[in-house]
């Protein structure tokens, strides 16, 4: 403060003091305004307001609207409202809570869990409000309470509409669930719009489409006596019910996919390539969203949290995995597109390992004895690693990252769910930002989808759909339409283009399709197991993502590796190749190989979509049709 000249200091003091003086005058004036108004209200108009207060007999009571229902694409109900009797207490009207609860216990069953969550709610909700002690009373119980009701002060028996998911855990990771409005929720919503409502969408579509689902609260003007008890209803503004949602999900396909994955940790996402409509959105294990509607009891919640399989995690949206060999198809297209512009001998002799010039470090092929001579087509079909090590060096890391970005990797897909993960698309620039240099070895492992790269199952499905759609990437959408439940006025949501893969030669798509088709239908294809009796053409690619690094010279030995460290199995596919109607991505955590663990699941999902059930046993399609399966 003393390092400025005294003259300036005095000048600054003068400026500040003048302004402070102005502010002081402003403060005094504003206080006067308030005082005049308060004196007006409290002294001059006091009698008027005292009378109004005495006569304050009309109270608006909010009438909650029915929440919109959620249907699958065929009209199967996924979320509905169920009228249930709930036993509610207004704590402020109760003198001795413990005595009251003991009394109620003699009438109906009240568990310790009920009591615990009730007391928690009493603490959390400061306002004068009904707090549920027990819900789902049966007729008997309701009758027993109803008879005693006049004697039980502060107790109310209400029939309320409650959210119910009739199919239990089916598609819970897409639907999400509703739960009781919490203090945090209150901070972000318009409280008046939620008066009388007790539930709000917490997760998934219930959260994302809250604005459409919730409807508008109505109001009843009720005449009350001097103690605030209701006498009669004077007027009623009806609530407006929330809009019904129609999903792109097909409950049958969803169920088939969930059953196929049952007992494993993993994810399946199936998409209609042309529109981005999500047909199935699976993360396993699932859990029952109904448990959360009235606040899950702490023990069950603990159990869900402590479950080593982590059912609460949405693996399709939040699971991030190395894509493994599934990326080879995308690099395969980059290879086709690059043509002679890169320095690459496309007849690679695979000896089972690859070394960078001047280095002794060996990058192994999954097949130790090597694949021999391979072209791009064979490299994709047999998933030869050495070919893609060489291709990666020829393409270079920036080009590889840019090309994957065309398919939506490293970005959010824009699906209509909250809090999507965007995966990780490493590049030299990304690594530099973290203060680390990019080594040529990083490029090599990126060629087979290992290293720091991460993708979500949803991104994989979108990328696969993008191939099937010949480069046009549609935004994945879970909801197809919403409608007014009364007027049935229906709004169809239009598909959106999220991006486009720029290709020089559109015929390259055909070559890639042939590559991917031979993976499933070719004699040496890694997924030939699911192609044998398929009555339609499938294009696919297997992948395996390492969970644990393997030392130089050592071998991966599935039998002797603990389950948690086994490789993740991946498979992507679309079908029918001629006019794709479904693209699907499957990830089975610690499932081992993509061909054995993941591909059969994809096949069951595709059968359900394309055939409406498991395929009948038939001779192999390739043998019947005799279609040539070579590329180029």
């Amino acid at each position: 403060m003393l390092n400025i000249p005294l003259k300036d200091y005095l000048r600054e003091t003068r400026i500040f003091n003048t302004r402070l003086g102005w502010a002081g005058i402003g403060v005094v004036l504003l206080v006067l305004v308030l005082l005049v108004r308060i004196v007006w209200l409290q002294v001059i108009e006091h009698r008027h307001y005292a009378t109004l207060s005495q006569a304050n007999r009309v109270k608006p009571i909010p009438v909650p609207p029915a929440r919109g229902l959620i249907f699958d694409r065929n009209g199967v109900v996924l979320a509905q409202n169920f009228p249930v009797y709930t036993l509610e207490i207004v704590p402020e009207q109760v003198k001795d809570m413990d005595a009251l609860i003991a009394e109620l216990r003699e009438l109906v069953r009240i568990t310790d869990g009920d009591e615990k969550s009730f007391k928690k709610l009493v603490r959390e909700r400061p306002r004068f409000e009904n707090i549920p002690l027990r819900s789902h009373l049966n007729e008997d119980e309701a009758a027993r309470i109803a008879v005693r009701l006049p004697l039980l002060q502060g107790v109310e028996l209400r029939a309320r509409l409650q959210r119910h998911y009739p199919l239990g855990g089916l598609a819970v990771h897409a639907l999400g669930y509703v739960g009781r409005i919490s203090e945090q929720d209150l901070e972000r919503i318009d409280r008046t719009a939620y008066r009388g409502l007790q539930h709000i969408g917490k997760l998934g579509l219930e959260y994302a489409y809250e604005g459409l689902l919730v409807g508008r609260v109505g109001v009843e003007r009720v005449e009350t006596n001097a103690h605030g008890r209701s006498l009669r209803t004077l007027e009623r503004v009806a609530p407006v019910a929330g809009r019904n949602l129609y999903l792109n999900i097909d409950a049958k396909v969803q169920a088939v996919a969930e059953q196929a994955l049952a007992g494993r940790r993993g994810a399946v996402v199936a998409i209609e390539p042309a529109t981005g409509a999500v047909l199935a959105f699976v993360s396993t294990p699932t859990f029952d969203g109904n448990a959360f509607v009235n606040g899950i009891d702490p023990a069950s919640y603990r159990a869900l949290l402590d479950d080593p399989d982590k059912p609460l995690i949405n693996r399709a949206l939040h699971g991030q995995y190395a894509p493994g060999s599934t990326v080879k198809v995308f690099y395969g297209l980059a290879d086709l597109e690059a043509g002679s512009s890169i320095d690459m001998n496309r007849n690679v002799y695979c000896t089972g390992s690859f070394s960078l010039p001047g280095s002794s470090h060996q990058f192994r092929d999954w097949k130790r004895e090597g694949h021999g001579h391979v072209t791009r087509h064979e490299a994709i079909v047999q998933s030869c690693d050495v070919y893609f090590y060489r291709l990666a060096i020829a393409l270079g890391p920036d080009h590889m990252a840019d090309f994957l970005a065309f398919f939506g990797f490293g970005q959010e897909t824009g699906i209509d769910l909250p809090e999507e993960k965007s995966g990780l698309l490493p590049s030299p620039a990304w690594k530099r930002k973290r203060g680390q240099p990019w080594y040529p070895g990083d490029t090599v492992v990126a060629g087979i989808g290992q290293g720091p790269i991460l993708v979500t199952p949803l991104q994989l499905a979108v990328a696969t759909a993008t191939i099937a759609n010949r480069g046009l990437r549609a935004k994945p959408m879970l909801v197809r339409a919403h409608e007014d439940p009364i007027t049935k006025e229906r709004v169809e949501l239009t598909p959106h283009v999220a991006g486009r893969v720029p290709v020089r030669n559109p015929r390259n798509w055909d070559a890639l399709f042939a590559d991917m088709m031979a993976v499933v239908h070719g004699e040496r294809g890694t997924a030939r197991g699911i192609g044998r009796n398929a009555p339609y053409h499938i294009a696919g690619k297997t992948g395996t993502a390492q969970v644990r690094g393997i030392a130089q010279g050592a071998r991966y030995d599935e039998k002797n590796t603990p389950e948690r460290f086994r490789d993740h199995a991946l498979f992507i596919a679309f079908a029918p190749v001629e006019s794709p109607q479904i693209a699907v991505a499957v990830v089975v955590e610690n499932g081992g190989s993509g061909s054995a663990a993941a591909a059969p699941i994809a096949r069951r999902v595709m059968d359900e979509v394309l055939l409406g059930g498991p395929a009948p046993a038939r001779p192999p399609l390739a043998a019947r049709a005799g279609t040539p399966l070579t590329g180029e």
Partner: protein
Amino acid sequence: MAPRLHLDKPLFYALVLLAALSLAILYSASAKNEAVTLAHFVRLALGFAVLIGVAQVRPELLERSAPWVFGIGVVLLLAVLGIGVISKGAQRWLGFGPLRFQPSELMKIGAPLMLAWYLARGGLPPSPLRVAGALGLVLLPAALIAEQPDLGTALLVAASGMFVLFLAGLSTRFMGIALLGAIAAAPVLWHYLHDYQRNRILTLLDPTADPLGSGYHTIQSIIALGSGGIYGKGWLNSTQAHLEYLPESSTDFIFAVFGEEFGLIGVLLAVALYGFITARAMLIAFYAQDTFSRLLAGSIALSFFLQFFVNIGMVVGILPVVGVPLPMMSYGGSSILTLLAGFGILMSIQTHRKIVEF
């Protein structure tokens, strides 16, 4: 000199008295909810601990830390918007294990701190370039907070910055132009408001137009105050709150309950208390000896008053229902901590003055 506790006694006692009043009225307004009253008490106790702690910090240290506090605040705000989508949609919070923390609260102090630091370095009155820089510094966090979205806090942060600029001697011509600009922009802003926000403004003109919707708060609040009269209905006797006519009676509209129960006499006492605290805070700004301390103290004083005025204005029906809590009294929210930390800064400025007078 022996170490002493740095506290400004008049301000401290006034705040303690206000805290005691707030507990009494909250107990009544929450319908004798002990859990709520206790929670408020804990927040107050924590707040006073922070106040005493901050008051011991030398203003020089505060000044040096200004860019850091501000910088960290901005980073945290970005984190909240970007990665920190912690508690399912409520984007205002950052979670550290069981602790939750609202970076926008930090900005209520961080923004005036930064601006005072920035403007003090350039001398008063600020050059046009510095004014532009200062506007940028205050609009950045305000925009980030508005994006959360938390319009109320965003406006408070913006106002705290504007107070610094005003006190620094921002040219009257500039203020005139800004005022005209604001008037011209009003129709555009109107366009961006939500329906319910528009209703709240229209309600102000005629509360009876929509007595069931947004006018209801105002009508019931005015009835509560007016029926209190000169002497009030007595503690715990508010019918408006207890018969549930008055919504938000323990949060935004707590002053209506206060006026109903304690009447004009109580209201005058409360207004006098708030007025005294504001005046004392402005006096501290007046006595402060360097530009940074003055600007900061002045801004804290005026921001406190602004919150008080907006809340009471809403309760007595001369301002729209905007959801600004009454400082110290309203239940809930994490603002008590920030508020008392601000008063800690004032006390630090007051009690660390050099003895030499110019």
